[in-house]
């Protein structure tokens, strides 16, 4: 294992990925970013399977930035899977999407999303939003102790 992944960015648009990474980099938050281009890739990474079978549950990403419209498995399905599993349910998931549809907002919060953000069109505003989200979840927020949820799982809870 080379380094711990801090952000899992789930978005199928390469341009949006690039702009998000640039915004993160601009705000010095670009250390360890893993990109998943669809929901299936994101689940492989989070549940340590397929190409990521050597990963360990004891080092989950500190933040998942999740788009809703995704190929294969959509964002809300990914969120549902994360919240349904004891080993991943504590991971902060922030929905970052173009949609401000009420249905999506309600479904997101019903499934236990940590925050819901509509991507601003203006790049300066977008960059500022990314900075605030990154600062809060990576620096201000206290993550649970490493391995806490995995250990519980091992005890058979």
């Amino acid at each position, binding site marked *: 294992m080379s380094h711990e992944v801090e952000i899992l960015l789930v978005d199928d*648009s390469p*341009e*949006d990925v690039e*702009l998000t990474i*640039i915004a993160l980099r601009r705000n010095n938050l670009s250390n360890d970013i893993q990109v998943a281009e669809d929901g299936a890739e994101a689940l492989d990474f989070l549940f340590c399977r397929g190409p990521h079978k050597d990963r360990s549950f004891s080092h989950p990403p500190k933040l998942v930035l999740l788009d809703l419209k995704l190929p294969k498995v959509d964002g809300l399905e990914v969120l549902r899977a994360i919240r349904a599993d004891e080993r991943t349910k504590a991971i902060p998931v922030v929905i970052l999407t*173009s*949609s*401000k*549809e009420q249905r999506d907002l309600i479904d997101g919060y019903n499934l236990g999303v940590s925050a819901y953000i509509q*991507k*601003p*069109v*203006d*790049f*300066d505003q*977008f960059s500022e939003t990314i900075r605030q989200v990154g600062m809060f979840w990576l620096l201000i927020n206290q993550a649970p102790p490493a391995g806490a949820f995995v250990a519980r799982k091992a005890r058979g809870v």
Partner: protein
Amino acid sequence: MSFASKVIAACALMILLGIGVLSFRSTLRDERDREWVTHTHVVVESLEEILIDINQAETGQRGYILTGDADYRKPFEEGTQNVHRDIEKFRELTTDNPSQQEAARRLQPLIAARLAGLVERMEIRSRSGLVAASRAVASGNNGEELMEKIRERVGEMRETEDRLLRIRLEEASASSQRMKTVIVVGNAVGIFILLLAGFVIHRETGRRNLAEQNLMHINERLERRTLELSETNHELESFSYSVAHDLRAPLRQIAGYSNLLNRDYGPKLDAEMQRYLHKIEEGAAKMGRLVDDLLSLSKIGRQQLSLEATPLDSLLRQAVDELAPECSGREVEWRIGGLFSTECDAGLMKQVFVNLLSNAVKYTRKREHAVIEVGQMRQNDTRVIFVRDNGAGFEMQYVGKLFGVFQRLHKARDFEGTGVGLAIVQRIIRKHGGDIWAEAELDQGATFYFTLGWPQNDAKKSNTNGKPESAITNEVYSVARS
């Protein structure tokens, strides 16, 4: 019930009433005729009795003459008394008949003479004995002659009565015939009317059933149409939402990459390149605003109103406060009159004020001293809120385009905007059952009027050309300067 069946019912009622009256009258008449017949019989009987009385008197006289026994005077006297009584009775019974009265008057002296003759012979008997009396009887004087005349007269009188009886019997039988006819015809008419009524009711019921069936079909069709329309409407709203939504993604890329290009390579670009780049950024920003406005317009279309009693005053003040940044550095005079409270969706109503006031602020930008006035007035029992400014106004010939989506009455160079703001205002007002309209003159400012709640009459627009100032209920303005 149709007009025709009402007429038939009225006729039927009249006819039945008529039949009732006729039957009643026939019965009365029949009864009277019968009484008359009876009366005639009584009269005839009294005539018979007169003859019997005379005979009785004569029989008594004869007995006395033969026997000289005073007992025979008694039947004589009874007959005499009775004959007077019965004549009197006859006269009473025939008071209505002058000819019979006359006949009775002529009969009386004959009877009196006859009775006098009897008395005379009885006196001869008592004075001179049987022989003298028998001789007197045998000489006969004129006793038999008188009696013959009496019988004749009574016979004539009886004939008169018999004639009357025949006439009355005929009349009675005719009226009884008439009564039968009235009853038979009346019943026939009654039955006919009943049948007619039954037929009419049957036909009306049939018609009504048919009409009800038609109505049900129409209702079903209407329900289907409504469903189709609401589906279409929903599809359209979803379509415009997803278009607006999907437009944002590429837009973000244009905005994002031109921003990066400017930031990272700006210094290396010459002035013309930078101008082009600036235009791209401006375009993206404008499209962003358009898309956002479209999204809120379509959202209002789909949104359910959450109604609560709301003081419009406080919404207005919040809107004015929100606009403070746009007014900074300008001289804007707010004239705020009191507004009523009403049931409305507070969030949406605040947007109405924000949009109308930000328009007023925008279009007075070129005035040194901007005046924006908000108040309420009463028009044909409807409360109307107005927002007036002394800004750029517009030509009234274009007023029809004012509330259309993407419709603008000013060049973007003069006043920026997406042309969605007033469409949103109109949609919110209409959702509240109100109406909005405007009056303006180019360069003389504009006034927007709106009502809330479903109108009680349709004539509310008839009077807007007058001076609304005169109708302002709250004359005192609070004047604030920004």
